[in-house]
């Protein structure tokens, strides 16, 4: 298993009970000027975390600023990651320290970007999402286990649900394989395809 690989994550979670969280909220455009992939975590949800763009004045009620919430799992409302295709959104979430995002619904481009960065998007039912929010808010120390090999998500001492992922992507995530490595291994096939068109 290489360093990027992801298998079983057991952690407390941060509840972001907001729908239609777009990638402009996850990382505003003015922070996209870097030419590397590192360091975006400090500006994750920047305009929801800080008042008047001033780092010294956090919005006390925003979940990332509430000390009781922490962990490697972000639980968010439906249609998470909509809008801009900026992969910086996935980089920012991963860089902040999350390995899993749970929602009842992800925007397509964000889901691909997350998978390409070994940030696991877990789709649960609306009912299960509601249970997760209720449980985390009632007890922020409640742990959640996301088990990729068995494709299950389980609330400590409680409910469980299975989630979908393609066999291909599952293998990639469990072994730390990139799509690009796969594509590079198919170069001969791609060249043959070019000749056929």
């Amino acid at each position, binding site marked *: 298993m290489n360093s990027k690989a992801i298998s079983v994550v057991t952690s407390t979670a941060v509840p972001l009970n907001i729908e239609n969280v777009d990638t402009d*909220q996850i990382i*505003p455009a003015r922070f996209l*000027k870097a030419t590397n992939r590192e360091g975006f975590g400090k500006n994750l949800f920047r305009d929801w975390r800080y008042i008047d763009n001033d780092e010294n004045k956090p919005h006390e009620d925003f979940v990332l600023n509430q000390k009781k919430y922490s962990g490697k799992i972000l639980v968010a409302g439906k249609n998470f990651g909509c809008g801009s*295709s900026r992969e910086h959104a996935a980089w920012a979430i991963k860089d902040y320290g999350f390995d899993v995002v749970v929602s009842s619904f992800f*925007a397509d*481009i964000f889901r691909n970007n997350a998978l390409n960065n070994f940030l696991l998007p877990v789709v649960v039912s609306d009912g299960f999402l509601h249970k997760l929010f209720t449980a985390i808010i009632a007890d922020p120390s409640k742990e959640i286990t996301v088990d990729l090999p068995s494709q299950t998500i389980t609330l400590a001492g409680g409910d469980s649900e299975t989630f979908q992922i393609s066999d291909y992507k599952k293998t990639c995530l469990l072994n730390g394989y990139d799509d690009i490595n796969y594509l590079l291994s*198919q170069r001969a096939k*791609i060249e043959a395809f070019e000749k056929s068109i």
Partner: protein
Amino acid sequence: MSKTLFEKIWEKHVVESIADGPDVLYIDKHFIHEVTSPQAFAGLEKRGLPVFRPQKTIATADHNVPTLHQELPIKEALSRKQVEKLTENCAKYGVELYGLGHPFQGIVHVIGPELGITQPGMTIVCGDSHTSTHGAFGTIAFGIGTSEVEMTLATQCIMQGKPKVMRINVEGKLHPGVVSKDIILHIISKISASGATGYFVEYAGSTIRSLSMEARMTICNMSIEMGARGGMIAPDEVTFAYMRGRKFAPQGADWDKKLEEWKKLKSDDDAVFDRELNIDAGDIEPMITYGTNPGQGMGISDTVPDPEKLQDESERNALRKSLTYMGFKGGEKMKGMHVQNVFIGSCTNSRIEDFRMIASLIKGKKKSPDINVMIVPGSQQVAAQIVKEGLDKIFTESGFFIRQPGCSACLGMNEDKVPAGEYCVSTSNRNFEGRQGPNARTILASPLTAAATALTGKISDVRELLNVNPA
């Protein structure tokens, strides 16, 4: 077996299908820009790879460029570095760049079509979600992340699950004062900001067929705003007439050959779509948005929906949050409200027809003294055409300030921002919180509605200025 247009083009580009996994999809044309490409080039460098097919990638600088004094070095250090990095990468890897100062520079989704690079039947990707714009030519065009930009540079392929296909039929005649931006805002308001997630959309019907290419691009452009992977329109005589003679369009015998192929690009009569939606063009009014996602739109004579009347708790909370941000109350009319800014630009509405439409409305009239009006052409070619047609004089006399081409205040990445707390009626595509600047409040509308608002200083029904009766 009968097929949709989407399926026909997709299947023709599949190099390999992985069992219980994505397809390896061959990409005909790849557009890149300064913001989402540097990390992809860095990835190539780390792996010691060349660009596999450099002639299939075209670069421009648009997202992060200033729209004043483009002839001078960029003042802001990080922006300058990002634009320089693009120049450096393109030179090193042999990619054609239409950078600042080049007569073809402009918003990536404006220049591809106007140069004839975008052609029917192609697969097109770009690290930008509004790549769906190119679908107006009967292409499969969609936005990708930077890892996928790297894959395309390295192998000319990406790995994608095949989406479902939805057809949206728009039938009938549009009322005066209603334009293509209103059609797409109307559709998104019906289907919601997530209603087409997982789908690729084909727009069809008599209303769509009656539109110009530029109007069709506006519609396909905003497909992503309802969550769709992309949007497309089958090419027809309007498409071919637009393309003929463009810089990189096929010429001579090659054109004739391509034309025969392009004419076949349509969904079979009995093709089955996973979902169909029918829209009556006669139901569409000039549209405005009241909330913080493009699905929160309404006709200009409607009232803002009241969150307290919603049954579902999470929907109620979401609407409350949007209205609090926007400073609107449920049940009130937006028409007649004062706004401080009008932005006319972005990959949605910054083409020459948009500016002709606006000029014909404002000619001989002055903007309201209380309003700041920013006009940003989509490309150097559009900017030159504005001057050639004398539209610049009309804008200047009316008090509309013309800037240089770029994405500008659509995303507030450069210095063109809407001040905190102020309203902006914008021809762009996203009314997200802070999109046009921290705490800026965006109201999406057509170029006509934006121009009408600029003249009156208040959110206006353009039909009253055109002396046509609202339906």
